[in-house]
């Protein structure tokens, strides 16, 4: 399936939006203007982008602790994201969630989550809902290689497989859970060995190549909409920042490894391709970039201008009316 220029440009723009958003967040964090636990998605942009491109607003996704990219790719509003990260009342969660718990149920983004592996069972429920609705909706769940070590991973695979749920498992294998390597902590040298044990069809792709992700996800999503049961996509990638933004947390990953992956930037690579293929010119790239930067700036300002919640707001939303 060859993409038209417009689609390619949109893929590029989405990736770049994630990148610029995350860069701004990191800069503000290091300047002391943001707080809490913020897990940067930089380096992994191609995955959320390539997968979510296939999803309609009625399709649902479940994210994890490193969730900003999934939100943006699913179409979330940057203003309300930034406001949430700043702890403002205008944020997606009225300041109750922060970076780790952004959600937008109105666009089928069922939330980021701080517990490794825990999105997986929740996603089986969303996928079961999609199956019962009977309108060919699907659910995608994003999770890291670290999540594959939790029992919930196994249970969700099994549940999806026996019930033939329209659930796309998207494993973002960035080789580490904090500072521990996947090689050390998971005996399945290829993660796809595990879904295969449950007869779930798998695809392993280079997660920094947005076209490859897009292609594999496209096949998987088509199969899912056809009612074929779950699919599993493993995307090899790397995170550029420390596990979370922090001035003190140690990064124990080898320096050369970090640098070698910086050479495999999903965005720079794709930009080069688009220019080479004549889809975009260098000037187009700059125009897109300044548009994205403006959006991010606006979002940051929107958040800045927004009020903090009142202390007593803490008492609301414990129970739904």
């Amino acid at each position, binding site marked *: 399936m060859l993409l038209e220029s417009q689609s390619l440009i949109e893929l590029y723009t989405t990736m770049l939006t994630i990148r610029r958003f995350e860069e701004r967040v990191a800069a503000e964090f290091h300047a002391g203007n943001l707080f809490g636990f913020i897990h940067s998605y930089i380096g992994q942009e191609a995955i959320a982008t390539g997968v979510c491109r296939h999803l309609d607003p009625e399709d649902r996704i479940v994210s994890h602790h490193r969730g900003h990219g999934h939100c943006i790719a699913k179409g979330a509003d940057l203003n309300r994201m930034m406001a949430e990260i700043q702890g403002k009342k205008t944020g997606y*969660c009225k300041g*109750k969630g922060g970076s780790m718990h952004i959600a937008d149920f*109105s666009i089928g983004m069922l939330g980021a989550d701080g517990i490794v592996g825990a999105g997986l*069972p929740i996603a089986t*429920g969303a996928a*079961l809902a999609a199956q019962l609705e009977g309108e060919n909706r699907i659910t995608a769940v994003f999770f890291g290689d670290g999540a594959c070590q939790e029992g919930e991973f196994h249970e969700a695979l099994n549940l999806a497989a026996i019930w033939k749920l329209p659930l796309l498992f998207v494993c973002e294998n960035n080789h580490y859970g904090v500072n521990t390597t996947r090689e050390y902590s998971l005996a399945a040298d290829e993660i796809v060995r595990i879904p295969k044990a449950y007869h779930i069809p798998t695809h392993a792709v280079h997660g920094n190549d947005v076209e490859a992700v897009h292609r594999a996800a496209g096949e998987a999503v088509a199969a899912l909409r056809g009612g074929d049961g779950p699919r599993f996509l493993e995307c090899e990638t790397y995170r550029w920042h420390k596990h979370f933004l922090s001035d003190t947390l140690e990064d124990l990953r080898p320096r050369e490894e970090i640098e070698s992956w910086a050479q495999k930037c999903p965005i720079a690579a794709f930009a080069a391709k688009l220019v080479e293929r004549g889809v975009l010119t260098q000037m187009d790239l700059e125009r897109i970039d300044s548009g994205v930067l403006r959006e991010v700036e606006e979002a940051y300002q929107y958040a800045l201008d927004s009020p903090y919640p009142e202390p007593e707001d803490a008492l609301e939303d414990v129970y*739904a009316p």
Partner: protein
Amino acid sequence: MREITYEGATQEAIQEEFRRDPKTVHLSTDLYAELQNEFGAERIRVTPIAENSFVGAAIGLAGSGFRTVVNIRMATFGFVAMDQMINHAAKIHYMFGGQAKFPILYRMTVGAGISAAAQHSVSPYPMYMNAPGLKIILPSTPYDAKGLFKTALRDMNPVVSFEHVALGGMRGEVPQEEYFVPFGHASVRREGSDVTVVALAKMVHEALEAARELAEEDISVEVIDPRTLVPLDRGTIFESVRKTGRLVVVDEACQTCGAAAEIVALVTSDAAVFGRLKAAPARVCGLDVPIPFSPPMEKFAVPDKVKIVEAVRGVLESRSVPS
């Protein structure tokens, strides 16, 4: 009025609500044949033995517009699913700023008395009470079981129902007509003027027996069944204690940090009620031990009529020494 069992009453509530609302799903490791016959295998699902995943699935269903009944069966198995229950079900409405609702009914059986030993005889509702975001119901009669289930199945929050193993087969009057028992409304099971006994679940029935026995000695005991622990009807309890001046709280769960501790703390830290107390309140709770298998020990580990009678006598004899 017709009499049906407690278990039958819960099933009837589920049937009525599942008929009304097609976007309802039932999950359990066990086959509920009657429900499945009526509502089909799509909605009445048998799950693998994987509690954390189906407790979590109910959250995803809820976030996608479905209401789910999850029968976890014994409360023991609930500990396997604590991540989804406490880290997620309880918090997810709040941490997402109220943008989505999570209507789920989680069911678990609790209680000792069937020689099921330490793991299978737990009464852990106090732990769940410490996790805001969950509503907690504790029906003690078939009437309440149905009425509270009906309310739970219209509530837009995760509700956890704890059902005592000894009550499942209990028969009682249940109207044919539709009715609801609201949350946060205690039931005064027996009126009295000397001592207030707040009792939970199976202990309601032990307390009523104790009250009957004490009545023969002209001791007038008021027995209150809170019926729901979250929300808890303080008003009815406070009013009763203001009247009687004496409080005994009876609960089968382990005493430390239990619902009885909470009730005593609420009562005693209310200045007005505190001022009316004629004696130190008493707790009659499960011992702080895992439940032992062998009947003599098992019986000793949980409260019963005899211990309640003793405690009521105790609070009547003891006098507050004004300082």
